[in-house]
């Protein structure tokens, strides 16, 4: 797997969330992701960026373009230095039929993407999500 490029975006204001959506939209279109995949990625980005802004006291996201033999991938790593999530398991519990998850939309972001990793402690939170699409 090759990391083709990296981009760093700061998430400090509410506008940054919308700006990030536009950037991500542009990237997934360039990568020729399927239409549903595109929407999923942009939505997940919006959810996670919102978390960084609202609960993480601001932070940043690193966007990586990944390349494998037959597929391309987009990885977004959201990092903030907020108070962290005390109960990650519970936060991931929100199902589409329940309303738990502490309003963090983490479970949703996880279901929208192919890969999901989270580390969280008192010093902050780091969420990494990846979506792959087969090359034509």
């Amino acid at each position, binding site marked *: 797997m090759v990391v083709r490029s990296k981009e760093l975006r700061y998430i400090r204001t509410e506008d940054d969330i919308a700006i990030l959506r536009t950037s991500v939209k542009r990237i997934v279109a360039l990568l020729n992701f399927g239409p*549903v995949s595109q929407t999923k990625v942009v939505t997940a980005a919006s959810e996670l960026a919102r978390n960084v802004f609202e609960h993480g006291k601001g932070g940043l996201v690193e966007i990586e373009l990944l390349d*494998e*033999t*037959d*597929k391309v991938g987009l990885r977004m790593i959201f990092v903030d230095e907020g108070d962290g999530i005390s109960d990650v398991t519970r936060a991931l519990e929100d*199902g*589409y*039929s329940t309303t738990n998850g502490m309003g963090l939309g983490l479970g949703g972001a996880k279901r929208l993407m192919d890969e999901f990793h989270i580390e969280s402690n008192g010093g902050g939170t780091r969420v990494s999500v990846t979506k792959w699409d*087969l090359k034509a």
Partner: protein
Amino acid sequence: MLLVCDKKGSVCDVFPLLALTLYLMAKLVVKSPTQHLRTACMSDLVLLCCYDAHYIYGSISMATETTTSEVSHFIDEFDKEILAEWTSQQLSDKSRSAGVSNASVQNSSEEFLKLFRDSIRKGNLVDTDSLEWQPTLQMLSDLSVSRATQGSSPTETANFILSLKQALFAKLVSNSGKSTAGLESSAWALWTILDKLALHTTEVFQKSREAVIRRQQKDMLEMSTPVIKLWDGVLVVPLIGTLDSARTQIVMENLLQKLIDTGSQIAILDITGVPTVDTQTAQHLLKTVSATRLMGADCIISGIRPQIAQTIVHLGIDIQDIKTRATMADAVKEALRVSGWVVNRHAAEGNLARGTV
């Protein structure tokens, strides 16, 4: 000798048999070149058997600067002879796959050796992931794929690289009149790099297989989830086999698009062909219905066998307010009814013989 014993420590951590080989190599190098070669080949065989061990030599870096420049000069000097020896050995190898032509052997060998020389000249004998080795790795990736299509096994392609050792070693020995210490470190440096390159070809082969499987899985999924227009405004989705999340995604995408395309407001999800319904499957069904409703349409689930009905109740799955029917026929009747269609049977119409139904 001392240098070798030093290194033996770290090799043992990783691969005892190879350590033994290395020791034997060091012991035998002055005595008999052919014996040395045999043990080197033995190590290759073991290596091939364990091609998954990526980082066998990670902890060993014998390539010092002098070694690097020695190796580089050596290859530059004897480039043509090594190539000749190597290609003649490959061409005379009877076990070579029929799909690989003589010309192909000649071309690939020439190209590889050239790139190999270029990469070594740049000075990095240790890290094949570095930029200097990219052209060589790319050439090998392409070779691995093309050899695979020609019918070669991954071992054969890896042997393409490893067979170079024989030619190299013959030349190293005949050239080594001056110092055996130089010979050891040069040989070891070359072997290390060649092994890594050989592993690379096998990895590429494996990855391209995985890619083929992925593509086939995707095609199969798309083919096995048709969405059929049953009547104006009514769609049917016959689900066959297990309903996993990948299939659910395809069903949702196809169904929702078809709803728009046909302007249908009812979709019948028929699960007659779904062997078991567990909590997961039920979740997937509920998800599909949810998405359908968001579009402004609705679903009827049909094909609910008695056992499935019992399982659903037993598992405590909440089917909410979704309409369900035991048979597709009943579901169709209901779908037509809510769509406002009325089916009439006229005594005079149709030419099939009729009894009472």
